[in-house]
Every structure is written in structure tokens, then in C-alpha cells.
């Protein structure tokens, strides 16, 4: 019969129409929809057409979602180095960046003029960034990660969209909050929650301490006694020699300096924002 196809099609539309409002009726047209209902509608069991009322309602993004990059720094309450950059300014992210939107100024020691593993400045031109995530993928120090904040519109193209180090830096705890599983995997790969270098140093120190301890410990009787003591004594001294008092003071001072620097930076940022 001519027209049967059209009628069949109209049946489908009516079913879709009913399905679309079925859940609404079930939940009493509740605007603040319960989370489990949202989950059903976003999942494979949903029926009908469903619109998420952005910006009143937002679909949460998955963990691997990538928008623009940010730099990971230590938390403000980090015991040793609060606010310290994880970035070592090795430049790999700026090399793998397809549109070349990452600009890094490598830090130099003012006394010796030699490069130090810390960026003096770090810029990302967000206008040019193509959100590919290569920087985060290839960073050997897990120091640059992709952010989830996608609401970045503003009225000024020329200056606001070049993000500097202050704007880019976000604490490690923030990264753990947006990507808990990935952060854990990466920490497993590194061997701890700290920066790779810190972990390495710790391991080195541990190894050295273990070695020293082993050396200090009495050797098996088979080893000639005279040689063993002659070798072991200076090593043990060398390891334990750096007096805890002096270095601790130094560390304290450095830590205070860093904290002050961080606070000043945050204050500047705040002032700029307002």
C-alpha cells in the first residue's frame, strides 16, 4: 500500500517522542535530576532524545580528556619544596608540539652561567595549541599535563591567551583530582608520588646509606681484617660526614625562600586577576 512506509516511519517518531518524556514523567520533571538518572540517560540504556542543559547542567569529562596543557608543581603544603616546578626545562614538549606553541626559557645559574634544570619562563600560546596532548604524553618527568578546564573564552586575544608560567602552574593535588587513575599509574611507573629526580636522589641516598652500612658492618671473617677496616672507615665517614645541623639550616633557609617566592607569585597572580 502506498504510504505505508510513511506511516511506519511516523510510528517511530511517536515512539521516540514518548521515550523522550518517559523518564521526565518518571522523575516528575525534576530539574535537578538525580545523578543516577543522568547516568542512565548518558549510558547505553537511554531512550529518546535527551538534551543536557549546558551551562546549567554539565557533562563531566572523562579522565583522559585533554584540553590545554598545564604545568605540575608541588603542592603548597609540600614538606620539602612547596610550589617547586616539576619541569626541568629539557625542551622535549616544545619539540614534539605540532603547532609549536610552547616556548621555554631554560634557567641558568647566575653565578656560573650554566643551565639548571628549571625553567626561567614558560609560555604556551593557547590560540595555537591544537589540544593534541603530545607534550603530556612525551614529557619524561610527568611535569606537563592536559587540563580539563574548557571554559576559557575571553574578550582579548592578544595577551590573555599567552599563558605564562604563573598561569600554567597548578599543584600536583589538582592533577590527582582530575585524573586519579592515570596519576596513580604514572606514580607506579616512577616509583613514588614524588618527582622522578627526587625519587632517584632518594634511591641514590638509600643505596649509598645501605652501602655505607654494609661497609661499616663487620666483614665476614674470610676477608683480611686489616684491609677491610682501612677501606671501610673513610667511606663511612664520607657518607655520614655532612653534618646534619649545617645542611638542615641551609635547607630551612631555601625552603623559606621558596615559600616566600611562591607566595609572592600567588599574590601577583591574584592582583592581576582582580
Amino acid at each position, binding site marked *: 500500500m502506498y504510504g505505508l*512506509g510513511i506511516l511506519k516511519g511516523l510510528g*517511530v517518531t511517536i515512539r521516540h517522542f514518548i521515550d523522550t518524556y518517559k523518564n521526565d514523567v518518571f522523575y516528575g520533571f525534576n530539574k535537578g535530576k538525580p545523578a543516577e538518572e543522568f547516568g542512565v540517560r548518558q549510558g547505553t540504556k537511554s531512550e529518546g532524545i535527551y538534551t543536557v542543559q549546558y551551562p546549567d547542567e554539565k557533562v563531566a569529562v572523562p579522565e583522559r580528556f585533554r584540553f590545554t596543557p598545564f604545568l605540575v608543581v608541588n603542592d603548597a603544603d609540600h614538606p620539602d619544596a612547596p610550589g617547586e616546578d616539576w619541569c626541568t626545562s629539557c625542551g622535549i614538549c616544545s619539540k614534539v608540539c605540532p603547532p609549536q606553541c610552547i616556548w621555554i626559557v631554560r634557567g641558568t645559574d647566575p653565578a656560573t652561567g650554566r643551565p639548571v634544570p628549571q625553567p626561567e619562563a614558560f*609560555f604556551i600560546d593557547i590560540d595555537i595549541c591544537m589540544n593534541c596532548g603530545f607534550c603530556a604524553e612525551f614529557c619524561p618527568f610527568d611535569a606537563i599535563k592536559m587540563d580539563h578546564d574548557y571554559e576559557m573564552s575571553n574578550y582579548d586575544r592578544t595577551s590573555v591567551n599567552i599563558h605564562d608560567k604563573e598561569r600554567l602552574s597548578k599543584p600536583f593535588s589538582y592533577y590527582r583530582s582530575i585524573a586519579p587513575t592515570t596519576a596513580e599509574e604514572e606514580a607506579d611507573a616512577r616509583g613514588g608520588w614524588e618527582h622522578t629526580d627526587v625519587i632517584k636522589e632518594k634511591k641514590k641516598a638509600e643505596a649509598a646509606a645501605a652501602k655505607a652500612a654494609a661497609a661499616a658492618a663487620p666483614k665476614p671473617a674470610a676477608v683480611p681484617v686489616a684491609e677491610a677496616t682501612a677501606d671501610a672507615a673513610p667511606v663511612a665517614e664520607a657518607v655520614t660526614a655532612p653534618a646534619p645541623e649545617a645542611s638542615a639550616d641551609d635547607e630551612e633557609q631555601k625552603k623559606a625562600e621558596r615559600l616566600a617566592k611562591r607566595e609572592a607569585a600567588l599574590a601577583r597572580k591574584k592582583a592581576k586577576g582582580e
Partner: protein
Amino acid sequence: MVDYEVQAPPTTGSAQDAAAYLKAKFPGAVSDDTRPGFQGVIVEAGKLTEVAQAIRDELGYNYLSSATAVDYHGAGDHMEMVYHAYRISGGGALNFKVQTDREKPVIPSLVSLYPGADFQEREAYDLYGIHFSGHPNLKRILMWEGFEGHPMRKDWKEAYYEGEAKPFDSRWPSGWVHRAEEKNIYGSNVRYPADFDLSKLADRSDEAVYSSASIGVDYQRMTDPDDIRTDQLVVNMGPHHPSTHGVFRMVLKLDGETITGLEPVMGYLHRNHEKIGERNTYLHNIPFTDRLDYISSMGNNFGYVMAVEQLMALGARYTAPTYRSEVIRVLMAELTRIVNHLWSIGFFLNDIGAFFTPMLYANAEREKILDFFEATAGSRLMCNYMRFGGVFKDLPERIRSTANLMNDKIRDYNTMEFLSDMINERLPRFLEEYDRYLTGNEILLERTVGQGVLSAQDAIAMSCAGPLLRGSGVAYDVRRADPYSIYPELDFDIPVGKQGDLFDRYKVRMDEMHESLRILRQLLPRLEQTKGEDIMVGTKAYSPRIPQGEAYGRVENPKGELGFYVVSWGDAKGTQNPWRYHVRAPSFINLTALGPMSVGQKVADVVAILGSIDIVLGETDR
């Protein structure tokens, strides 16, 4: 001298047999390409037409997949035209090349033998300045008439030119940021000839379009206000026309409501993707391929990494991608096919007047697949998922959103459950419903059956690909004809149409989605079996060493055969950037058939015909 004996032409053998036959038949005019890593034969320019005739008629390579130019500036200083021809019955490529002078490049046109070379030769003329003697409509295609220079030539520099190759030195170690336009407001790259009169600056594109062969209007008379003629009407559809799916323009010549000529005009979205690709390193190009056909970025990634992996395979230390990564790649490619066909059918229905309801139904399903892409690759459209030797990351344990300050609504699903629900229940149910909704609809049938017919011979000759080719009854699918990845072990059919009209193309797309689901159902157990296996070969390197050579990697993308022709100079040139990076874009080459299909149809049908080709302007214009 080897004494060749001319034998009967091998119509089924390998490309080597074909090359041997050609060398015997045309002694002196055909020789092997002996550069390390290069394949195929080099044909003398004067003999090209005869050799191509033999290739097509005697050897049976009747499907010209790709024709592109390479500029060997500073590396032999010649231009080269590279052709990849295939047999429509399947098998590998016969790769033949013609070399010509860089200063006065002239090559005989192959349009009379392979009409599919039409747009590709025009592109080579536009971007490389190669003249094709005998081409019926040799004018620029992506740039406008009056553009100075040929941008793909190695010595041509774009505005805001910064360096020959990335990474640029200004970024590190003293990367004080600047904007290109601040340093270089108009750019020293913008040059006017000494005797140039700015007041005479004119875009001659319109004149060229209106006087082209298919329109054939006397431009002088058309623009003469005293001469009013009514028997011929030229109508511009686009570039800003909702039916053109982007910035695409069709110039129609009408006799009443009937079309007597159609000239496609494109390039409004041209960004010289290939030039960017040649400045990039190999790795940089992966996210750029996402931007070609942005509906099916996973497929684009697949084609590109395959081409580069072919190059890597020329080297000494190469391991093929792991089995799990191949399974994941095919999973993504087939999901992409469904995504694309849902989109394309939805918009096709829009084009024939079923406004937005079918499209929204289809898009609701597409969204679910994109959710999976987003959870796996990090992005819904610009997936950037595949890498040389594997994929970015394994499938996540759970498709879940994480709580943070901005997002209050949480979703949490097990990935494998989500996938199997989609593949086994939701999508089949939807396709069945969609079929019931549309396929029997009398209005749809009236609009599509018998309209926009393309015969099988024409489809092959015009190098059409994908559902356009299969809708015309040619069962040519790269997944079967020249298999790659794990497709040989998968069980699926190739749906074809009967008469090559709009309905057949619609039906082929519907059936292909069912076939994709069939493939996906076979992939699920493979995913379970390989759980926990490596998804990458070796360690991830940001600058893989690519040996010298050429490669043409092609995949069956949803829109048709997507090919990447990549030439590498290896370490010889010092840099790790492709010397040539060419995209054989199905959206672009399929448009060759638009004019011939539309002539004789009504204006409203052109919209439907264009919709049935299914183009994406990001890929057409590149």
C-alpha cells in the same frame, strides 16, 4: 643488456611482472626506479600516454588511485609525477612515475585515459606549476586564479615563514614568546613584482569558472549590462549554502530547472595541509590528519601511521605493531565507519527535505560512540589516537568521568560492558529501527530511486571510492582488495548497489554499518583474549628514525579510499621531516563525478547528489 621477450600481458600477476612487461614493450622509455627504498618504474614523459594506455588496457590496471607531484628541489632538481594504479579486481599497486624539468615542467595529461586524474592533475598544476598538455580544463583548483606562485614547491615560502622544518630553534632553550604577526606584520614573504599596480589587482577566478568547459558562458557578454539574455541562467550555489556541508560552491548552468552544466569550485578551506605536513616531523602529522576528515579522525590516523610504518619497515630494525594494537585499531576504524555513516545518512536525509529528525536520531547514537572515543583517546573528534607501532593508550578500565570542581554529574561504566552493549544491543536495535523509519518511506524512494545515476564504468574511470563506487555495483573495498591490518582474518561482506543511484548509495551505507557491527562482534572476544598485552612496540619515541624511501599507505575510510603518499630522505638529509606528504583525499576525488552525475537533473537533485557523495570540506580542500 637483458634481452626481454615480449609475452602476453600479465593481467593478474604482480607489479613486478607488469613492470617487466612494460620494460620489454617500451625499451628505453620505461626503467626501474633504482633509488633505495623506491618502487615502481620511471616512464619517459614523451611516451607516457602510450605506456599508460598499455597499463590500463593490456595490464588491466584500470583504477588510478592517486596521481601526485613531488618537487625534488636540491635533490636531483626535477619534478616528478607519481601515479598509483590498481586493478579493480584487487591486488597491489603499479607505481609509475614521470620526471620533468623543474623550470618548464610539462607532462602529457592522462585525463583521456583516466578521467579520475582530472582534479589531481589540476591540483598538481595549481600547487606545483606542472603543465599537463591535453588537459581539457587546466586551471587552478585550490588556490584562486591570479595567485602568485605555486605553494607546494620547495622554494616557495608561506607568510609568517619561520623555518624549513620543525622543531623551530626559537622555542627552546631561550624561547621568549612572540606572535608571528607581531614580528612580521605583513611579512617579508609578501612580495609584489616591481611593476605591479595594486589597483589592477583582480581575482580572475569567476571569469575562469564561467568560461570553463562545463559552463561555457561568454563572461564578457554575461557581465555586459546592455546584453540581456534569458535563455541561459548561471546560478551559484554556495560557498555559503546550507546544502553544501561547508564552504563549497557549485556553479550551475540551467535550462529552466534542468542542469546543463556544473562546475565545482573549492579551496575555500584550503590551508595547504601538505606543506604544513612537510614542515612537520613525522609525529607532528598525526594530529594534523585528524583535521582532514574530521568526522572520521580515527581512520585518518590509521592511514597515516600505516604509511609511515611501511617506511619504517624498509629499515633494518622494525617490528610490526602488536596484535592487540591492531585489534584496537580496527575496532576504532569500524566504530568510526558507523559514526560517519550515521552522520552522512542523517545529513543526506536533511538534504532531501526530512529536516533534522532523522539526523538527530542518528546523532544520538553517534554521541555514545564518541563518549567511548573521548574516554579512550581524550577527545571526541580530534582523536589523535594512533602511533607508529601501536596506539596511544590501552582501552580504559572504566568509561568514567572524574569529579572535579566544574563537573557535578558523574558517569561510570565498565568499558567492555559499554562496548558490548553498544555492539550487541543498542546499535543493531537502532539500525533496525532506522531501517523501519526510513528505507520504506515513499518520499525517500521518490527522491532517490533512479536519481543521480553513476554507471560502474564511469565510477571506476573517475577513480570514485567508497560507498559511491560500491553503490554503482563495483565490489571494491581496500579491506578486501588490498588487505591490511587484521582484516584478512575477519569475516564480513561488501555490500554493493545495483544501479548506482542515490538510493543504492544510501542502502550501501546502511548495509556497511551492519557489516561493521559484524566485524565489531568478532573483535570483542579478541579484545578479551589479548587483555593486558602490549599496545606499543618498543618504547615510545618522539623522533622515530625513518629510513629513505617512499610509501603509499591506504585504508578504506568511511568516505572512500584514503591514501597517504610519504617520501622520506632518511638520514641523508639530516632532518626527520617527510620530504613529501600527500593525502589522497576521497572527498576530493569523488567530486570528479559530481558534474557528470548532475547534468540532466533538477536543481533540487543536485543537493541530494552532493549529499550522497558525502564530502567533508576539511578533506576536500586540505
